[in-house]
């Protein structure tokens, strides 16, 4: 493989991106404008049948009255919360940072004594032993932070009896994660998905580029030179990875100035960019598949949405606000795993080496390389490179 050829074709592709107004808009300006508009205005949370998994660390010294068990039963009876018990807080916090549970509730040691004191003198608050239930929430989940605390608060209040709304209760709920930091905005929840969103439109650009070069005879002209298929495809993949990197940097700058400033180190940022680069491979692959199917560049534009829309709606910040069924369906697209990994890194505070991030990275790597391979093979089969 001659690097001179790869470099020449890569430079050519870069110049096209910068000089063609339509390409420049679609690749760089559109994601930025869209991210700005969407980030600034999108706020609704739609999910009519929610279900949240809550981890519970029960430190209660239950005596004659096992109030913590009553609380756990009441939580389960809501049919909204699924309770998972942990023996210690560390294990529960690990699962929270991996996104396995949406919240962790710590039942204090004095919970049953507090409940007993309340039952002994329900109308005399001076006789109560107060207990504080701590709640840690998944900062990467908009719905968890908004929906889970009121549900638990309601269940705790219900323990005080049927007239709980009128009577004070010895139980209080402290949402620990929200006490520690500023309350995250809707935009914060969307930001990880925006990194993923930016490069999805590469699908359309790749499909258009290949079909246009076929239509105007450039593909044939390059085939007449000694350029090998490997050199040509390497140059294309390199070009679009560079474009994806620039997109990610632009989107990062954009969201940073709009207020998304996660407190993570440089390695995490670097890793995020690696994820975006890996993800760009799948977009090149989908673009090639589209270019294989499409007979013209016009058709390629339309057909590319067959891949753009699922990636966008099921796997980016758009999908995070849709129904739980949609979020389950998202697991079929690579963008879901990129967004999930970025959410774990930026919002949940997970390490790069944490199981959730590694698993997401593995899925992204394997699926994206496979999609790229399928794209190259299909395109090569029907249109010689």
């Amino acid at each position, binding site marked *: 493989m001659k690097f001179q050829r790869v470099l*020449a074709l890569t430079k*050519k592709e870069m*110049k096209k991106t910068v*000089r063609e107004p339509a390409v420049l808009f679609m690749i760089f300006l559109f994601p930025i404008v869209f991210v700005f508009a969407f980030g600034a205005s999108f706020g609704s949370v739609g999910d009519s049948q929610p279900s949240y998994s809550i981890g519970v660390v029960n430190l209660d010294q239950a005596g004659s009255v096992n109030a913590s068990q009553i609380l756990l039963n009441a939580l389960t009876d809501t049919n909204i919360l699924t309770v998972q018990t942990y023996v210690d807080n560390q294990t529960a916090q690990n699962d929270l940072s991996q996104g396995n549970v949406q919240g962790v509730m710590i039942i204090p040691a004095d919970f049953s004594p507090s409940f007993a004191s309340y039952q002994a003198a329900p109308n005399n608050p001076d006789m109560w032993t107060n207990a504080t239930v701590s709640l840690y929430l998944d900062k990467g989940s908009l719905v968890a932070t908004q929906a889970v605390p009121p549900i638990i608060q309601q269940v705790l209040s219900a323990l005080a009896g049927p007239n709980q709304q009128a009577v004070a209760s010895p139980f209080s709920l402290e949402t620990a994660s929200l006490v520690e930091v500023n309350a995250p905005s809707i935009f914060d929840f969307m930001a990880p998905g925006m990194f993923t969103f930016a490069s999805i439109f590469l699908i359309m650009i790749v499909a258009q580029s290949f079909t246009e070069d076929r239509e105007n005879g*450039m593909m044939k*002209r390059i085939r007449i030179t000694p350029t090998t298929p490997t050199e040509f495809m390497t140059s294309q993949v390199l070009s679009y990875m560079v474009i994806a990197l620039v997109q990610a940097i632009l989107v990062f700058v954009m969201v940073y100035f709009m207020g998304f400033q996660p407190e993570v180190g440089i390695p995490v940022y670097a890793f995020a960019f690696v994820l975006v680069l890996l993800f760009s491979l799948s977009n090149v692959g989908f673009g090639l598949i589209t270019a294989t199917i499409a007979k013209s560049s016009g058709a390629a534009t339309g057909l590319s949405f067959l891949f753009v829309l699922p990636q966008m709606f099921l796997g980016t910040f758009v999908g995070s606000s849709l129904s739980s069924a949609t979020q389950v369906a998202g697991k079929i697209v690579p963008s879901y795993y990129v967004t999930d990994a970025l959410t774990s890194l930026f919002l949940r505070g997970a390490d790069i080496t944490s199981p959730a991030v590694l698993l997401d990275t593995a899925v992204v790597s394997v699926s994206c390389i496979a999609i790229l391979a399928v794209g190259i093979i299909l395109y090569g089969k029907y249109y010689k490179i």
Partner: protein
Amino acid sequence: MTESDIVTENLVKKFEDVTAVDGISLQVKKGELFGLLGPNGAGKTTAINILCGLTKPTSGAAKVGGYDVQRATGKVKELIGVCPQETAIYPYLTGAENIELFGNLHAMNKETLRKRRDILLENMGLTGDAKRRTAKYSGGMKRRLSLILALIHDPQIAFLDEPTVALDPQSRRAVWDFIKELKKESKTIILTTHYMEEAEELCDRVGIIDHGKLIALASPEALILKHKVENLEEVFIALTGRKIREEV
């Protein structure tokens, strides 16, 4: 006997029920300017595509520069320069950038590429427009640039597929002069055209193709003499009963 740069033996190419090339056998000598003549759709471009390694023949064999086109396509591509019928250039690159791109695809040395680029731009009258994007070029300028892209790496063998189609007389004359210069450099050239006066002006020998078959093969003078006519256009009429451009 002069060595042949291009040899085809009973070359056939079928597209489903259409036979585009039907048993063409010919030899083109080193340094010869050979014209492939015929109306549009006669099979000229398909024949060129086979010789460039772009299209696989249904049967028959072809050698270019001594290499089998099917077995040593890479070697053949290093020897040849091809100016395709369509004006294929990148509109978002300047003329100079288009040339440099194709020079690099042929792995040319940077200094050689720069010198040759400047010479060819000068010869084709494009020096003043070299730094303009080709989207702004006229049709004639694009065709001339397309010719430069085909020849930037100084190939031994050139395939020029209708290089003057739709050109104004001035641009056509410039291209003719350029092709004559190539001949002086002893390049082997296959020129396809349906302009008979172009073939008469430039070619050492011509092969006339009709419906995929090679129906005549000789020098323009010999064909005119043989058929006792005034020009190649009349030779074609004598051979087929039709005018060559009726089917254009």
